[in-house]
């Protein structure tokens, strides 16, 4: 199981047999800019850990 940023194109994942199970939305309170660098972040740790 892997939680990938939707913007990242990892063609390898469907080739390996990964299918989408569900989606999440990363949200920040009263803020519109990310705290991280999404161009280098491919998969998060998990919704519970950020």
């Amino acid at each position, binding site marked *: 199981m892997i939680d990938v940023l*939707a913007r990242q194109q990892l063609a390898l994942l469907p080739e390996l047999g990964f299918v989408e199970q569900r989606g999440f939305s990363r949200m920040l309170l009263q803020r519109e800019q990310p705290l991280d660098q999404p161009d280098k972040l*491919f998969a998060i740790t998990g*919704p519970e850990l950020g």
Partner: protein
Amino acid sequence: MKDVKISSAKINPERWPKPLQQRQPRLAEAEQLLALSRQAGWNQTLADWRLLLASAGDNALSLWHDERPVASALALSYGGRFAWICMVLVTPDWRGQGLATRLLRLLVEQLSRQGLIVGLDATPAGRAVYQPLGFRDIYPIRRLIAARPILADAARQALSSQHCVRPLQATELIELAAWDAPLFGAERYALLQALYARLPHCAYIARNASGDISGYVLGRDGQNATQLGPLVATDSALASDLLLATLTALNSTTPSTGPSIAQVLAQVLNLS
């Protein structure tokens, strides 16, 4: 521990004669709280709950009824900069009574007093709750799952990047945490260390020709599936190589009816 009266006409005093008790959950209660995430079908293990409770400290709230946890909401603080809300859970028989919203509001107030930026990853159902509270979408995340990754063909594409990918060593964690901090947005050495300890054989690091870190991947066991991540890399080719490395390691430690990925890789790389 304090008794609280939840203002909701939906709570039937005949069905629930005892008051709810709101308090910070204790580390020793991790096993009881695990029931909450299990009921929701989430992936956390007892080790996850222990990690979360130990990390959250005062920023953990729970509601108990008759010595049983019925709701939880936690937040992990990173680098004194931001806090990540998680484990907003309500047991099925207590849902629809405003318990999650109550804990969430209390937690957000508490975190705001601490001067922390507040974030979370919301399910579609959760998003509808968080938006009215002022949470804004930053970017979407897709959860992908594979019963058993098909590695044979992918192995032939291995090592497509120009980086050296190899197992992460515990001695590299401090350097890794320093490299990761500006990319994640805060220092998270303790978390990376804890994840590494959970599944060290799935931890890989990449370095460029100069020996500088250029990416890494970690993984951890779960209630339903092994969770891979974080996966951080300077480009997508390297991210794919790291992913393949960790899946190969994972594959070699789980039962298989076909050739192992180690055997496939050995054939591809003419090692056998």
